[in-house]
């Protein structure tokens, strides 16, 4: 049975329980002294509905995971299945063709071996779909009987339903922890596998990056997995070039908007900066690749640099800097606004001009917040993918020349995982190791930045 049918069945049965329980509670109510029950009829309804719907839903989930295996083993135990190959693509093709015909998704099989399996498949599919349906109904009825046996006029249905609600709320908030752990465990697990093939020393300190996805997977050449050029490219593009653009412009816009601009101007300019933050990164990437990179190449050639490449760290870094401006600006905005007005007034009263007040009083006072904002911006920049994929290129260069093509950690993650190598190949696994490094660095930047912001905020409160 398809998951959708089981899902609909669960909802339908739950709804039936809901309706029956509610009408029964109305009857209880009519016969109760004073026409009052400890719980409203709707709680009776939810109690029954949840008791019917949730077990069925759980069963549906388990059945979905288990039944394909059961069907397969049923088919394989049939006489027609003795001749098919024990493993490999041929076997998968035979099985999937027989299944498609049995389900009515295809007219006929292309491989002759599959013909013998069509009937067993059809048989198994029917058998197990009836079994699933029967089990669903049994579970629903059993759960329904249990729920209804407890629904008495004096039953505290509300308290029970509220316990369900509390558990659901807790489960929902645990999803966040689960995701974090999922990310962490996935990255650690695959990274450990990678370090089983390539030494961590080679990876972290080697200066040549050029994994060969076609090479034999069992004995990789460690000297081709040196990630220093990637770390350098990431740093150069995200933390140097982008920040040279974003820090002065972001900071100065924040200062201008908070200290100088008239409210009317501010009202229009602030949303415009927010639009800059809302533009998808793939659009920035396209802009960098289509407009900025060729322009930089033209300029470089006219300046006498003959072999300027059309992909350059400069193009990616500049556009990334533009993308980061709103982050820097809004963080600086917040921390400047958090400086007590008295400090500003005091400085102005002493005869300082506005710009002296800003430079000598406001910015130093807001510095921790601004630094934290810059750290967050850096973490954002080094994790950015599409701009560098589209504009910085795939060539790993260890160079300080911004006109050369450079590659970053994120670009190589994409390159390694969109290639042809299998999931067990060290080239593929290296992407997870790179992801792990990226995760740790951005995590550290964020934790430190949030600490700084918290500490600083407390200082003035």
């Amino acid at each position, binding site marked *: 049975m398809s998951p959708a049918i089981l899902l609909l069945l669960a909802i339908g049965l739950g709804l039936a329980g809901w309706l029956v329980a509610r009408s029964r509670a109305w009857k209880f109510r009519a016969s109760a002294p004073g026409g009052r029950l400890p719980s409203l009829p709707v709680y009776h309804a939810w109690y029954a509905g949840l008791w019917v719907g949730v077990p069925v839903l759980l069963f549906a989930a388990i059945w979905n995971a288990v039944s394909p295996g059961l069907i397969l083993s049923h088919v394989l135990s049939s006489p027609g299945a003795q001749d098919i190959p024990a493993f490999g693509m041929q076997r998968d093709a035979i099985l999937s063709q027989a299944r498609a015909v049995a389900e009515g998704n295809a007219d006929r099989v292309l491989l002759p071996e599959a013909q013998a399996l069509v009937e067993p498949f059809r048989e198994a599919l029917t058998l197990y779909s009836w079994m699933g349906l029967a089990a669903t109904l049994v579970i629903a009825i059993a759960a329904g009987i249990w729920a209804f046996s407890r629904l008495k006029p004096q039953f505290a249905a509300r308290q029970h339903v509220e316990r369900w609600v509390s558990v659901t709320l807790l489960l929902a908030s645990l999803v966040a922890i689960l995701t974090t752990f999922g990310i962490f465990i996935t990255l650690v697990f695959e990274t450990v596998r990678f370090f089983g093939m390539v030494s961590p020393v080679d990876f972290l300190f080697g200066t040549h990056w050029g994994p060969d996805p076609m090479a034999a997977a069992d004995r990789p050449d460690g000297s081709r997995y040196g990630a220093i050029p990637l770390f350098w490219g990431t740093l150069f593009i995200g933390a140097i070039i982008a920040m040279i653009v974003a820090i002065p412009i972001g900071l100065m816009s924040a200062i201008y908007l908070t200290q100088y601009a008239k409210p009317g101007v501010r009202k229009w300019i602030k949303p415009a*900066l927010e639009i800059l933050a809302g533009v998808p990164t793939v659009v920035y990437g396209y802009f960098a690749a289509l407009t900025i990179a060729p322009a930089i190449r033209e300029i470089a050639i006219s300046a006498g640099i003959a072999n300027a490449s059309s992909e350059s760290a400069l193009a990616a870094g500049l556009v990334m800097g533009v993308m980061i401006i709103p982050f820097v600006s809004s963080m600086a905005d917040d921390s400047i606004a958090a400086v007590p007005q008295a400090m500003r007034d005091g400085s102005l009263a002493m005869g300082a001009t506005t710009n002296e007040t800003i430079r000598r009083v406001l910015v130093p006072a807001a510095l921790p917040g601004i630094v934290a904002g810059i750290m967050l911006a850096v973490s954002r920049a080094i994790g950015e993918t599409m701009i560098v994929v589209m504009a910085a290129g795939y060539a790993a260069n260890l160079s300080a020349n911004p006109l050369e093509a450079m590659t970053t950690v994120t670009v190589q993650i994409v390159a390694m995982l969109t290639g042809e190598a299998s999931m067990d190949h060290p080239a593929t696994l290296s992407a997870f190791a790179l992801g792990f490094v990226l995760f740790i660095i951005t995590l550290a930047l964020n934790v430190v930045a949030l600490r700084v912001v918290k500490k600083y905020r407390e200082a003035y409160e």
Partner: protein
Amino acid sequence: MSEVIAPTRTPAFEARLKKRYAAEKRFKALGLGAVGFAVAVLLFLLGTMFANGIGGFQRTVFEVPIDFSRVGLSVPDTDNDSVIIRSLQSQGLPEIVQFAAEETLGAEGAAQVNSQAWRDVAAQIIADPTIIRRGATFELPTSEDLASAFAGDGKRDLQPLARDLAERGLLVDALDWGFMQRSDATDPQLAGIWGALMGSILTMIVTLLLAFPVGVLAALYLEEYAPRNRWTDLIEVSINNLAAVPSIIFGLLGLAVFLTIFPGYRSAPIIGGMTLALMTMPVIVISGRNAIKAVPPSIRDGALAIGASPVQVVFHHVLPLALPGILTGTIIGMARALGETAPLLLIGMRAFVSTPPSTFTDNATVLPMQIFLWSDQIDRGFVERTSAAIIVLLVFLLLMNGLAIYLRNRFEKKW
């Protein structure tokens, strides 16, 4: 009375003051320059996209009159479009179109009629079957080569032909509504974004269905129920960290976990939606918590005082009052998910998808991914199509953000 001169206003002071005022002016100009630069870049970016994108909403077509009264086509009486198209094909519609093109354009021009042009004619016949008794003037898409020759580059030897046909008014750039209705194709003249748009819509539905309930419930738990202890701190820290994790990391998780559990659904909206939901959920939790925090305690106290249970307080009073704020945050999170490409690149949603997906498990691609895929093509037609797709994406994002701002202004209460 003699004139009173302030004793401090010495010439040295005056000079210093002038310098300070000049510095003030410079500083202000610098600030204005920074803001101006940011706005100028934004305008330049949008301007470039629009300048290129206008052409993407058009395509180069031949104006060819076709008279069907002489050939006697018949349209089978069915609602199934593909049956009608197959029937028209077997009745020789492609040849009829080619013949009419030769009559009007000459052999050299007719060779440049797109090989799929008859499908457009068939679509018009399906829309209005009376055409086959009279005939009409059709806009037949040209080949990719002639389109770029008409635009002024591409193959040099086709340019005189393009110029000649254009002078006779047979070759024009016409508005191409089909761009919004077709799917990906290898020929920019035939490419459209409906397939990618549909993929985006399906993916966003999955993301919303997963991230919104979980995000709202988690926000309610953390604000209203959670005891102050280590576990709560751990949940809070992990939500804040998830909001800051680079999006590509979520792609790695989706690849290693979701695609291992569901290996058959590579590049299906359901996997993409699940991956993006993990990314969107922290955004919803954080904005939801702020919205819930903004509901004044007096509401809770009042409800509790007249006998509501804690769950009733939350679901009958706090949640409805916080909902506009939560929805604003949700829309902003969804807008971010709509523009996201990197995680989907890793989980394989970058296939060439020429038929629009109709279920959550079909092969699909999304709008930003279509932009990325097209951006690799050097053909001029695809450059314009890419910019047009970007315009569509930006319009959607603008609509979503506009809706969020409207909700915020319309429903958010100041207590």
